[in-house]
């Protein structure tokens, strides 16, 4: 019975990942991250994704502050923040976030403020979707680990 619980959770994890790949939310770089997880860093994926969340939220906050300023004109700064977001998103396999950041960056290179505002909204939307999906994934994995660890007394 417990084995079925673990199997069911693993199936749920596989289904969620397949869906995220199918939607283009994740790409093969996420698999590369999983392959780097080993006995020396058993929580590598979880740790890196959380670093990504911390970094991204700071960048998104800064982008919003810059664009909300009526006197704003520093598109170069927008570009620098976006370069970092593009880089880190591609490094963890967050394909859709990466792609919308690239589109946002194009608007900033044209000094297109309305385009930048739209771009920011799209990036924020994609980022939050990814974050919710990753939380769901980590919860399932935690449940699977707990289920696999439960044993009936002999």
């Amino acid at each position, binding site marked *: 019975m417990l084995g079925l619980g673990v199997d069911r959770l693993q199936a749920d994890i596989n289904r969620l990942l397949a869906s995220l790949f199918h939607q283009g939310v994740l790409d093969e770089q996420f698999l590369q991250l999983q392959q780097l997880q080993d006995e020396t860093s058993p929580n590598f994926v979880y740790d890196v994704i959380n670093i990504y969340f911390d970094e991204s939220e700071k960048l998104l906050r800064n982008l919003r502050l810059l664009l909300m300023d009526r006197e704003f004109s520093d598109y170069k700064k927008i570009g620098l923040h976006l*370069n970092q977001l593009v*880089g880190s998103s591609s*490094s963890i396999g967050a394909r859709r976030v990466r792609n919308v950041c690239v589109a946002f960056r194009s608007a900033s290179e044209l000094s297109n403020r309305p385009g930048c505002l739209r771009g920011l909204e799209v990036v924020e939307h994609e980022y939050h979707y990814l974050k919710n999906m990753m939380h769901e994934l980590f919860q399932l994995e935690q449940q699977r680990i707990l289920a696999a660890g439960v044993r009936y007394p002999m």
Partner: protein
Amino acid sequence: MTRDQIAEELPNLAESKLTALVVDDSFVNQTIHQKLLNRLGIENDVVTNGKEAVDVYCSGRNYDLILMDMDMPIMNGIQATKRLREMGIESKIAGVTTRANEGEKKEFMEAGLNDFQEKPLTISKLLSILHKLNFYVQT
């Protein structure tokens, strides 16, 4: 790639005691690049921008390989690469960046890179850098 596959590619890598410096302002990329290097048995340090990389070399430290990001605050990868070459630093420098249009790549290469890889960095791309820069010991 599995560890066995890596060992087949570079059988004596673990014995060569290579050192590398990761130069990147993103903590995500620092973490991943360090893990990739650790997986290949390459000792490594990390700095967060080009100026810190230059400062590290000025302090007398040296590395076989530098993985240099392009866009960084204070001093970017192009400026840092030029500066290191002006200082006579002969470490192999591989540019690693998301910017991959031909013009940007050319500018970065002309700064003094030995190789260039588009992010995201993977074990295969890192092995490609090492192969290209002759970082393996022949038996």
